[in-house]
């Protein structure tokens, strides 16, 4: 019994050593090489959002469409919603210029049709976000709706 105990302990120590070596062998996080205690490298400049006419593809079904333009100066409050100036259904509106709000935004929670956008959808930026032009930092194998 004692002998098997000793073997167990030896095995445990071996595994612990291997584990330690694996975990300390040059793993870099998104933080890069900067040590935790060290001062942070200078922060990168603020990024600018893309300002295109092209829509950004959706990644998955029912994803709130991404905003392909800047919206920094748009006011959205109780009285004003700048987004609706272009994205509201209007007779004679040029479809190519801006995507019209979905039918789902003209329904209340119970699914009843409304003749105005639902109040629950008023704050557009709760779901819709603008995008910068950047490659993912970490490789991602997720297949988007467009790719499938």
């Amino acid at each position, binding site marked *: 019994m004692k002998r098997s105990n000793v073997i167990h302990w030896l095995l445990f120590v071996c595994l612990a050593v291997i584990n330690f070596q694996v975990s300390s062998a040059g793993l870099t*996080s998104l933080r890069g090489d900067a040590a935790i205690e060290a001062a942070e490298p*200078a*922060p990168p400049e603020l990024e600018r959002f893309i300002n295109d006419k092209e829509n950004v593809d959706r*990644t998955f079904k029912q994803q709130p469409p991404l905003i392909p333009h800047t919206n920094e100066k748009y006011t959205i409050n109780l009285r004003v919603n700048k987004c609706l100036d272009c994205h509201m259904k209007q007779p004679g509106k040029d479809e190519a210029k801006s995507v019209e709000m979905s039918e789902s935004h003209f329904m209340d929670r119970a699914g009843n049709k409304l003749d105005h956008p639902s109040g629950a959808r008023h704050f557009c930026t709760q779901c819709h*976000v603008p995008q*910068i032009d950047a490659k*993912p930092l970490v490789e991602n194998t997720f297949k988007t709706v467009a790719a499938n």
Partner: protein
Amino acid sequence: MTRRVPELYRAAPDAVVYMNAADAEKRGIKRGDAVKIISRRGEIEMRAETKGRNKMPEGMVFVPFFDAGRLVNKLVLDATDPLSKETDFKKTAVKVVPA
């Protein structure tokens, strides 16, 4: 840490400090300037943002923790509540100065 979902990364690429425009002006800080955020426990450096998704009230700044390059936990108290073991990472008193 996050930053691994492509569309979320493109929406909010780096951590910034959100602050009220009046607060920033008082300290001679413009949107996009590098600032130092200093507490009695440590300091970090990041860019100031006075617009965007978070409109801060005067006297308060907000720093997210998703960005491994900007460790906001250097500023906060690492004590835990003796009963619940809840950490105190959510708030702390800081000074914001131009870097």
